């Protein structure tokens, strides 16, 4: 191996079967009930700046079939790529257009959604899932509406791209094409699937 | 007063116990061994390996025994086991040109390098019941020669030297689609077509292949070659930096040579239909080759319209494990849906002459 970091590789799930199941279930309910923060008890210590919650989602969902794209802060830390490759077997890709999952440590610098696969009219499922690392949830400055939400729901997370509402509106307008977002951090995960309408609160 | 029928659990247990008993048959007779099945019901075992898509003689023999000789059931057992196996890697493509041949016939040349080798075949046997086999006896020593396998060139390679047959598709090095790991979408590529046919039901492909001979997508086929024998399976191990032989498998390969009138771009030449199956499954390999060729109508600019040319139809229905499951699922209770239909029929009858009130909407 060319990475000296591999020698000090952080451990994966304690229990690969049940930890993966629990992480998936959190992500599943998060997307099924947009904006509601699901508890994600990620007992992982991945290399910085990868957060344990984002790492848990990656380990639960990624494998050799799912190319992963890393944003600049994550790509700048070779130990992150080594950790993900070792524990998931997923190829790390340079091109966001080739990704099935994208890990974003700095949502403020997030590429335009159009850089990622958004599915086709025939196969809208062939689209990326973006995993955005956030520092906190709360402060409901957004209002969500759509499948999974009874009426409307307040939502907030930080940090997010400054033009987040406009991006989500453009994403919704593409429906059934579009990208799906999982926001991970602070002991939880929230989902914003492409079906959700996001407005300023 | 009415008590609803209960006890599904007990009924299932009892049914399984009875099945076990019937499978065993007369307990006074010795239980058939897997070796006996593997050695004496070889072609049944081969079919189970081929359509079960798992090369393991011992497990296929076990499946034949457990399934009481129901080969589709045995294929199902093997498939359900196979799907749980982890993947260690993909072998290099088999080179059937390097096959150690146990049987090889060509219908296109009287003689050819390597010769015709009849091998173990039912061809030319008189289909007369051999009552000697009914007893304990039946020693059949091989009188002449040996059945040691031989290496010999492929007939289509000989034809190819003259450019009379289309070139075999080149391996472009890309990873082939894997129908067991990804859902198929239409239209399919060659790898998907061949994989699907290779595990397809022998009887189904036989009927479709037969239909092409009777004029439904006639392709003027000749058996360029059928060969059956042993091929080495080789795995590249990147960590080791060299290849490792995993052993040999027996396969039957059929290359059909079919007429082709040519087109604006391509001069008249022969085309290929290809069949490859685990074990000695000649009927299946031939049928597969006929159907494979028929499915290529679009690529060769032929007229469509026959059942064997209909890719979505042919490939969606050739898996006998899927087919038997869905046909047999009609045995499951459907009384909820039936009740809904019953209600509708009664209502529609009631609406014409007024009668039948009890279950009306």
């Amino acid at each position, binding site marked *: 191996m060319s990475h000296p970091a591999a020698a000090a590789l952080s451990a994966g799930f304690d229990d690969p079967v049940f930890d993966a199941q629990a992480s998936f279930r959190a992500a599943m309910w998060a997307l099924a009930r947009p904006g509601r923060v699901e508890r994600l008890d990620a007992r992982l210590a991945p290399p910085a700046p990868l957060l344990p919650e984002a790492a848990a989602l990656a380990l639960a969902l990624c494998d050799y079939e799912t190319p992963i794209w890393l944003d600049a802060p994550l790509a700048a830390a070779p130990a992150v790529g080594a950790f993900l490759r070792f524990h998931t077997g997923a190829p790390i890709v340079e091109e966001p257009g080739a990704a099935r999952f994208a890990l974003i440590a700095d949502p403020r610098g997030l590429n335009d959604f159009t850089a990622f696969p958004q599915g086709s009219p025939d196969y809208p499922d062939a689209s990326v899932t973006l995993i955005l690392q956030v520092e906190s949830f709360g402060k409901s400055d957004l209002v969500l509406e759509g*499948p999974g939400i009874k009426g409307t729901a307040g939502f907030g997370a930080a940090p997010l791209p400054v033009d987040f509402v406009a991006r989500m509106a453009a994403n919704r307008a593409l429906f059934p094409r579009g990208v799906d977002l999982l926001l991970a951090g602070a002991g939880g995960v929230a989902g914003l*699937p492409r079906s959700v309408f996001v407005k300023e609160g | *007063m009415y008590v609803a029928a209960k006890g599904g659990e007990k009924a299932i247990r009892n049914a399984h116990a009875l099945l076990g008993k019937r499978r065993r048959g007369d307990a006074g007779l010795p239980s058939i061994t897997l070796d006996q099945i593997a050695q004496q019901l070889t072609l049944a075992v081969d079919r189970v390996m081929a359509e079960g898509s798992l090369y393991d003689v011992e497990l296929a023999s076990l499946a034949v025994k457990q399934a009481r000789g129901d080969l589709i059931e045995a294929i199902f057992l093997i498939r359900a086991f196979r*799907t749980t196996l982890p993947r260690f890697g993909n072998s290099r493509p088999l080179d059937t040109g390097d096959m150690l041949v146990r049987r090889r016939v060509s219908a296109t040349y009287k003689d050819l390098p390597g010769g015709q080798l009849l091998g173990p075949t039912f061809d030319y046997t008189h289909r007369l019941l051999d009552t000697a086999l009914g007893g304990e006896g039946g020693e059949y020593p091989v009188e002449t020669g040996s059945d040691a396998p031989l290496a010999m060139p492929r007939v289509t390679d000989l034809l190819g030297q003259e450019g009379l047959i289309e070139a075999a598709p080149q391996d472009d090095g890309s990873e082939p689609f894997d129908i067991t790991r990804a859902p198929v979408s239409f239209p399919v590529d060659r790898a998907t077509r061949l994989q699907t046919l290779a595990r397809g039901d022998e009887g189904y492909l036989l009927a479709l292949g037969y239909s092409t001979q009777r004029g439904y997508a006639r392709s003027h086929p000749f058996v360029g070659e059928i060969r059956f024998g042993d091929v080495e399976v080789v795995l590249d191990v990147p960590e080791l930096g060299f290849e490792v032989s995993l052993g040999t498998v027996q396969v039957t390969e059929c290359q059909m040579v079919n007429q082709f009138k040519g087109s604006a771009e391509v001069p008249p030449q022969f085309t290929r239909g290809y069949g490859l199956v685990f074990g000695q499954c000649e009927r299946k390999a031939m049928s597969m080759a006929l159907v494979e060729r028929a499915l290529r109508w679009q690529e060769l600019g032929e007229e469509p319209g026959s059942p064997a040319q209909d890719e979505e139809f042919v490939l*969606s229905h050739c898996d006998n494990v899927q087919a038997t499951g869905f046909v047999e699922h009609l045995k*499951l209770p459907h009384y909820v849906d039936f*009740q809904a239909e019953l209600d509708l029929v009664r209502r529609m009858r009631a609406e014409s002459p007024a009668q039948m*009130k*009890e279950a009306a*909407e």
Partner: protein
Amino acid sequence: MSAQATSSMPRSSMPDITYNFAYLDEQTKRMIRRAILKAIAVPGYQVPFAAREMPMPYGWGTGGVQVTAAVLGPKDVLKVIDQGADDTTNAVAIRGFFEKTARVATTTATADATVIQTRHRIPETALNENQILVYQVPIPEPLRFLEPRETETRQLHALAEYGLMHVKLYEDIARHGHIATTYAYPVEVAGRYVMDPSPIPKFDNPKMDDCPALQLFGAGREKRIYAIPPHTRVHSLDFEDHPFKVQHFAKPCALCAATGVYLDEVILDDKGGRMFVCSDTDYCNTRQAQGHVGELGVPAEDAA
């Protein structure tokens, strides 16, 4: 679970065969889980997935079983019903499969279950927001009987071109005076995809609308997964002059006297005697235990 070779084998002995939690290997579960996430993100759209062979026949619930196996965790409580009943043979067999391979707790009580796998019914007891309802689906494509080709129907969904379906339903009205589809009655999900609700009686369709539980659909043989998130609009297709209506039954359940529930017809003798009883056995048993008695029922305290 392990399979041992028969001891009579003279040759090598067969190795033990062991299976993962809930039978499926982890890679397969991940693949199914990814499909479930996309299915939830695009309600009503059929996500292709690489369904595996299962140790039960295609058509007998392999899609539902794979979805259940992918979502199931050690703390789940599983209920399995077929035709509304917990004790039908296939429900018993599937429940036994998960008891054996996942050692999860099982129940027949709808309210106690966290995951309910069903074939052809939605329980009468209202579902709650912590529950997952997993449907077994034989033919996921609602347009299949109008257009057998996947290549065509995929286009129709892409274009949201559902005229064919409306024409079919309207032809029924022209011929019979009403829509002649009584089960697997097509629905429109979240205003976009027309979806097959699996062969539930249309009686159950309204339960899908704005349901607090997550509804997942698995079609193994056809290799499709689709979903309805909680609180999603599910509209049964109809026409202004022919609004959607469900079946109703003239009599209450003969055992528990419930009304407004789906009933099975039971033939009692060969002289035309028949009765109607709840198809949902848990619902019926619970009501009987609460003291409700139908005209052919037995008061709870008298039953041995």
